[in-house]
């Protein structure tokens, strides 16, 4: 009996902690609900029954303080009880933001919400704000792509016409280029190219050779999410070396030579910068929708908060690139009810705790997360809290410090990850310029890509499978063949995957 009581005690505490992680409630709530409340309940029950046995054969069922008829005692008692309840509520909801209102319904659908959460991730055609998912889990879903366009029209104040979303033709590739402790993301749409950020100062050779290697001559859309050196470091070299269509940056300046050089390069080329802010639509050609969800304000304390946040939609697949946007910007985005839902999330600020708040992560509900981070960096990125949070949400994590450059390919329906597309770059900010020559890099990349064969594993199984195997119906995680072998997986006997 005692053992069961103890078990319940621990499970309650853990469950509360888990739920607070998932829904953005204050994590210390588990102390209150998991430990204080049961303890209090036990004390009250103990006192109550003891009284019953020893003194009073017919105990009053009223709580302490209300048994007396004196009004002042009753008033004091109600004040104290009120204070107690308010304290618990305050602790519970300090960090919840928008979710506060939804909390009761979330609790009421405890049995359903595990599957409801899955629905959010899987159902790409569902464009309602995700919170409704919880209030009405059984709400019928219908393809709402036109409706989505309508919502955006209302949100956007820019007069740029939306590119018409048609059936996607061809592939769209997103390269999370491994530039160590920095960001550099290349998007190759069927007809246009976009570069979001350009790594550190020391990465210019690496980035230029990577782009030239892909036979890129023109960058149609160039975005500097915010003027920190780990995002705009090599932007000047990129501007100097390629044809540039349009340049987008938030209107905030800083005093570094890095930033000055970027501005000088822009000026030298006769380009003008368009302010990056929420509502701006980027032209990436037919079938590709790219719009900015942040920054939503003109003034922030931190430069990171000015980060341009871009959502890219191609067919049924979507990506969210968050720069280094932190909690304040994340709150603004969720408050504005943008459709943040995306399949792939570029985790904000290299996985620092300053970003990826639970409320925001829930709004995005990604299937995959990519963290652009330097191996053995000195800043503690990514933070284990963020890794745990992503795991709690069931998000599959890819990291450039573990995989090198990560290439994601989508045909508008399916998303395929090709990790290990490059050797892994060490921690930054490195003082040394890139020593690897362009040729060496190219060769290595090609060889690596040739070697990579993707197979699929399930969550629990010990075998690896080729795509489409019947064993993959429940879970299907892509993994490279070499990784699968190294992790002790053996080939499936039914589907005969590559060996």
């Amino acid at each position: 009996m005692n053992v069961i009581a103890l078990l319940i005690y621990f499970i309650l505490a853990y469950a509360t902690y888990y739920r607070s992680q998932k829904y953005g409630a204050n994590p210390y709530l588990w102390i209150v609900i998991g430990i204080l409340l049961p303890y209090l309940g036990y004390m009250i029950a103990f006192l109550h029954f003891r009284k019953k046995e020893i003194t009073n054969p017919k105990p009053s069922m009223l709580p302490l303080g209300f048994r007396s008829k004196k009004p002042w005692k009753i008033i004091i008692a109600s004040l104290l009880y009120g204070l107690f309840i308010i304290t618990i509520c305050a602790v519970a909801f300090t960090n919840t933001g928008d979710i506060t209102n939804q909390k009761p319904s979330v609790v009421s659908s405890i049995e359903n919400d595990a599957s409801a959460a899955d629905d959010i991730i899987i159902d790409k055609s569902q464009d309602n704000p995700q919170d409704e998912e919880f209030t009405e889990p059984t709400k019928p879903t219908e393809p709402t792509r036109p409706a989505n366009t309508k919502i955006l029209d209302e949100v956007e104040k820019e007069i740029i016409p939306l590119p018409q979303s048609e059936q996607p033709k061809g592939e769209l590739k997103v390269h999370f280029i491994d530039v160590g402790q920095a960001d550099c993301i290349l998007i190759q749409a069927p007809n246009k190219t976009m570069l979001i950020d350009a790594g550190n100062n020391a990465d210019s050779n690496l980035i230029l050779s990577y782009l030239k290697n892909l036979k890129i001559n023109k960058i149609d859309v160039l975005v500097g999410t915010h003027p920190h050196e780990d995002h705009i470091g090599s932007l000047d070299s990129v501007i100097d070396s390629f044809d540039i269509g349009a340049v987008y940056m938030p209107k905030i300046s800083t005093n570094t030579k890095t930033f000055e050089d970027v501005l000088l390069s822009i000026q030298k080329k006769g380009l003008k910068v368009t302010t990056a802010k929420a509502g701006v639509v980027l032209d990436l050609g037919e079938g590709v929708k790219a719009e900015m969800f942040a920054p939503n304000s003109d003034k922030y304390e931190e430069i990171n908060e000015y980060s341009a946040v871009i959502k890219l939609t191609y067919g049924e697949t979507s990506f969210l690139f968050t720069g280094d946007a932190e909690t304040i910007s994340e709150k603004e985005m969720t408050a504005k009810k943008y459709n943040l839902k995306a399949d792939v999330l570029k985790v904000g600020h290299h996985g620092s705790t300053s970003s990826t708040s639970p409320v925001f992560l829930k709004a995005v509900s990604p299937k995959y997360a990519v963290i652009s981070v330097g191996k053995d960096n000195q800043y503690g990125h990514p933070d284990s809290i963020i890794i745990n949070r992503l795991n709690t949400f069931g998000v599959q994590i890819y990291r450039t410090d573990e995989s090198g450059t990560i290439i994601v390919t989508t045909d508008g329906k399916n998303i395929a990850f090709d990790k290990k597309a490059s050797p892994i770059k060490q921690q930054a900010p490195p003082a040394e310029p890139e020593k690897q020559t362009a040729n060496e890099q190219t060769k290595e990349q090609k060889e690596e890509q040739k070697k990579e064969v993707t197979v699929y594993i399930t969550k629990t199984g010990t075998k690896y499978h080729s795509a489409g195997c019947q064993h993959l119906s429940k879970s299907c995680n892509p993994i490279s063949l070499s990784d699968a072998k190294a992790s002790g997986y053996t080939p499936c006997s039914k589907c005969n995957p590559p060996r």
Partner: protein
Amino acid sequence: MKVVIDRFEGKYAVVELPDRTMVNMPKVLVPDAREGDIILISIDASETSKRKENIKKLVDEVWEN
């Protein structure tokens, strides 16, 4: 030397040297600084010689020969 604070990461201020090299500087060295601030790093010659003299005096007092 004048260095510019580019950003703060964890315990460090990441500063830009005049040649655009980036260096981590412990935050404790620049307690009230903000992003974009320019930090002057220079040798204080008079303070150096004053201190040198003081320490020398102490050494002479403490040593027996």
